[in-house]
């Protein structure tokens, strides 16, 4: 595999609130190579979105990157000043957001919002900029881009708006795209179209992609590797096929078991008991131990990263045994 374009090591992003320190991202490491899609899976509040914002340098106070490094193309983004970070954002690292209804400014026309993304980074004539915007809209499958450029966001459907947001993200052919649940708010048919477009564009341009989602079935069909996050930590990483076929962390096992499947029709769905712990009051040691069927006294100590199988990394003292696997391969 090619050298990673993004290498996140021991990233810690903490929110210093009045009620205490919330460790939204705690000691997270992963890497993404050009042309690769890395899925980041977790429940709400697991820190997956904050990870994305940390890479973009868009964590707002009281949040702050408190440790670790984010090496992008050989340069550590942690500690870059605003101006240097701004020149990277949108140009070499782009982001797509979850809710297409909210990502476009309702009072500005599409052409304004697209052209400003171009002129923020390059000097370009108005006519040339329009041409590039038209091309970008055409590329994501928006018909009659000429008229569409003159429209306002409210004249688009949700799926169309997400296509526009993707077109904006692709304007500069970024080397890395961070997609924060971009298809969660869309209908399944639209979701499939968008996923197809993204897969095509990523492989055409050899773009690295971080796909943040809570939906394992999307990851199963899209990503090459997956990182499972729980309570601010990556608890399991590996290739998608291996992790889904043979989860090693009890949380991943529970997550896969919660996906409805045709082969287990009629049986009650397996659930993970309990709720995500409050980020202000995480259990000592492994944060999952209060909900984990395999937890014992050993789990009161934070487990380090181990590799029970080749190229499979987990944070757990008691990896799931083969016969304990609940689910089976989730197909997209």
């Amino acid at each position, binding site marked *: 595999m090619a050298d990673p374009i993004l290498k996140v090591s021991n990233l810690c992003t903490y929110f210093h609130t009045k009620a205490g320190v919330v460790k939204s991202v705690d000691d997270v490491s992963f890497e993404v190579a050009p042309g690769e899609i890395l899925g980041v899976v977790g429940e709400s509040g697991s820190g997956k979105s904050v990870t994305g914002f940390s890479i*973009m340098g*868009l964590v707002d*106070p009281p949040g702050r990157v408190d440790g670790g490094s984010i090496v992008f193309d050989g340069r550590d983004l942690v500690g870059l000043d*605003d101006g240097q970070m*701004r*020149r*990277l*954002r*949108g*140009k070499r690292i*782009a*982001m797509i*957001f*979850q*809710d297409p209804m*909210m*990502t*476009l*400014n*309702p*009072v*500005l*026309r599409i052409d304004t*919002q697209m052209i*400003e*993304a171009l002129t*923020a*980074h390059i000097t370009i004539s108005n006519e040339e900029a329009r041409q590039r915007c038209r091309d970008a809209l055409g590329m994501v499958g928006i018909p009659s881009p000429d008229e569409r450029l003159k429209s*306002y966001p*409210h004249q688009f459907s949700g799926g169309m708006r997400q296509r526009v*947001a993707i077109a*904006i993200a692709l304007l500069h052919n970024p080397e890395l795209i961070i997609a924060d649940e971009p298809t969660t708010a869309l209908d399944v048919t639209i979701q499939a179209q968008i996923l197809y477009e993204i897969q095509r564009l990523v492989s055409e341009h050899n773009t690295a992609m971080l796909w943040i989602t809570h939906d394992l079935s999307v990851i199963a069909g899209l990503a090459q590797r997956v990182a499972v996050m729980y309570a601010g930590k990556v608890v399991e990483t590996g290739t998608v096929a291996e992790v889904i076929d043979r989860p090693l962390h009890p949380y991943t096992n529970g997550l896969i078991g919660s996906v409805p499947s045709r082969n287990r029709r009629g049986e009650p769905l397996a659930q993970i008991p309990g709720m995500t712990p409050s980020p202000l009051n995480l259990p000592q040691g492994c944060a999952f131990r209060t909900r984990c069927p395999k937890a014992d006294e050993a789990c009161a100590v934070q487990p380090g990263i181990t590799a029970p199988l080749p190229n499979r990394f987990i944070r757990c003292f008691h990896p799931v045994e083969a016969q304990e696997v609940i689910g089976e391969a989730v197909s997209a």
Partner: protein
Amino acid sequence: MTVFIIRRTLQAVIVLLVMSAIVFLGVFAIGDPVAILISPDATQADIDAAIRNLGLDKPIWEQYLVFLGNALQGNLGDSFVYNEPAIRLILQRMPATLELAVVAVLLSIFVGIPLGMWAGLRPSGVAGKSIMVGSIFGFSLPNFWQGIMLILLFAVILGWLPAFGRGDTAEFLGIRSSLWTLDGWAHIILPAINLALFNTSLVIRLTRASVREVIGLDYVKFARAKGLSRRRVVGVHVMKNIMIPLVTVIGLELASLIAFAVVTETVFAWPGMGKLIIDSIFVLDRPVIVAYMMIIVLMFIAINLIVDILYSVFDPRVRLSDMKR
């Protein structure tokens, strides 16, 4: 659009009719202007003659119909006191009030919005907090007291600015105003600040609240993720969204500044409409009161119409064809 404006105009006529009837009856109910206007030692014959002259001997409904008939021809009656057309009296003083109100509104816009944005963008900073505390004083201290303090400080103690009155006027582009002379500006600064203080505070608080709301929304974060400069994000993406609530409030404030500049005009002896209406109410000068009210109502209607049209400029989701009311 045309239908919208025609409908608005019809509504305006109805509002004007209802309002004139209410004011007419109201002034009639308060008292008899003849008793105030005529000298105490006048004979009964003089009094009767005065009543006949003013048309007050007829029953109230007949007086009202006569008034309406005249009003349709653009004549709102002569002032009982000055014996001049009421409308001319008011129009004579209107420029003074208008220039005061316009300067005050401009002050509240160009001071209020930047301060409000500052406080909204840096809510935990010392400056942001001071601005918010200051704005509380701005709209909780009584207006007349603020005026007196301004005079005391800048006119009496420091002696920088004149304490009262309107400065020299000059004519420019066919408009006669004290804004074209330096002396005029020296005179208008204090009353304009006094008039603007309340509104500036209101604009500061509204701007801050809107900025706080908009800044956390996804589209602002997305704009930042595009690599836009901070100036562009705040100046275009945030600004255009907070203008929608601001235009409403500033529009209504302009109208109420013109209508209710009474306190400031009294404190600073400013020869505007506010002072005229107060004097007229004291002597029950009905034609002036009614004419004044009608002009004010017209102005509110016009400003509301402009605000509605401005909505569609700032918010593309509002289409004028959708405006049914």
